[in-house]
């Protein structure tokens, strides 16, 4: 179980890192195609609020899991 937890730690870290370019590129594409006020507000909320929380928490959680910090929890 400890090994699985560590392997998944790598996955969480990769997801946290990968989500940043994915969201930013998607936002640029959407706003580039339709620069409406609605689009700006939506993507601003996603980039300023949601993305940092998901990215930071997944990366930090993944690193802890990789280091085996959660091995004694469950």
């Amino acid at each position: 179980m400890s090994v699985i937890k560590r392997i998944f730690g790598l996955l969480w870290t990769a997801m946290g890192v990968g989500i940043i370019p994915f969201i930013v590129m998607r936002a640029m594409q959407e706003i580039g195609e339709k620069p409406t006020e609605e689009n700006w507000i939506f993507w601003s909320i996603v980039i300023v609020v949601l993305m940092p929380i998901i990215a930071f928490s997944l990366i930090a959680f993944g690193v802890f899991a990789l280091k085996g910090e959660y091995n004694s929890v469950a």
Partner: protein
Amino acid sequence: MAQNVTNVAQTEEVTSTRRVIAASSVGTLIEWYDFYIFGSLAKIISEQFFPKDNPTAALLATLATFAAGFVVRPFGALFFGRLGDLIGRKYTFLVTLVIMGGSTFAIGLVPGFKTIGFAAPAIVFVLRLLQGLALGGEYGGAATYVAEHSPHDKRGFWTSWIQTTATFGLFISLGVILIVRQTLGLEVFNDWGWRIPFILSVFLVAISVYIRMKMSESPLFAKLKKEGKTSANPLAESFQKKDNLKMVLLALLGATAGQGVVWYTGQFYALSFLQNACNVEFVQSNIIISIALIIGTPFFILFGSLSDKIGRKYIMMAGMIIAVVAYRPIYTMMYQEANLKTKQEVVEKTVVKTKAEVKGADSLLTSVTTKEFADGTKYKETVKKKFPVDPEKKAAMPKDKLKPETKKEVTLSQNSFNKMVGFVLIQVIFVTMVYGPIAAFLVELFPTRIRYTSMSLPYHIGNGVFGGLVPLISTRLVEFTRPAPGAPPADPLFGLWYPIIIAGVSFVIGMLYISNKTNNVDEE
């Protein structure tokens, strides 16, 4: 004699615990009620305070809607959480109650944009931020306070009463709005009647403050304070110490994020889906949600209590995975139940009425079509077209301003209505599974000295950010499937992918990393 003394002691303990739960729950219930009436009356508030033709006011409206949920709630969690770990639970959640009640009452008294201009949206914006701040501080305090009074083997049961308050608060807010609206009539309600639910709050808060004033401090915190063991800096201890930070992250990703999206999907997205995708009439859609909420509420207690016996983890995880698997089938059935294409129209009962009138410099054409279907479903479509009487002005107007405004309303038959209640109820049961045991789970994850701070943040990020974004992101995802502006979406269920993915990830993390063991909150 000895038996009598034991019985008296037990009776006193039960009475005291009931008082603790009642005092905490009533206050939290009122806070949720206050928070929800703003959301439920968003359209009227927008018309009164945030006119669309004023860009600054419109921006403030957006900020008021989102900032209170996203930014201010977690900030309130940190601010009041810290206060609660420094000076005590009782006084902190007394303060949050007064702030919430005061701001709600004040919103009901603020003159509209037409009377005081830009000051109106600015004042309402500040009051809404105060509401978010207070809500951020309230829940953690109430959950901690009750948990620290509860016996170890009944913590899930006792704290589940706090968990009922969010759903019950939504039910009461919908109920009060519907009653006031029906009593005063739509015109009076839109004019000034909408203020009543806000003003009513001050009386509820006064009662709750009176009850809470009579309560004593949490015994665990009082003991810690007496021994001088309270934290000097709860924020640093909560988020800078690795051992605690890792549990905050686990609570967020493995529990509250998934719980938040399941909660918001079951209670808010369901209502939005009924009204916007299924076009179910306003009052009927609210009644469907209200009935499902009231039938579903006792399940919070059931699952909270069950978590004392079999552990918190598996109940919460079961709720998440069942929701992930069941959402698309449930919403497909909801969509089909209101889909007029699947129903047989009684053509001879179709009525079309048109009316043309001049209002000032504008002409207003109104066309109302009513249809009836064999199963008893009724449909009403109102098309309003407004344009200048002067043909030159009409020709000069941009095309999008001349587009008719269409309102579709489906009134479901009794049979379809019952089925819809059932579909929403199933989702509310998912909510009770993930939400019922979570207060006990969170308080058991952190030590008493930093419990208020540590549990409040993941709760409010999970619910305020991950959950609070469900309506916005899901609606937006559906828009992506629209082949052209104004055309019906290719996949009206596409929005469900947001809660499905978040709850799915949360389920995997929770299953892998969360322990099913219930910890004792007084073990320091």
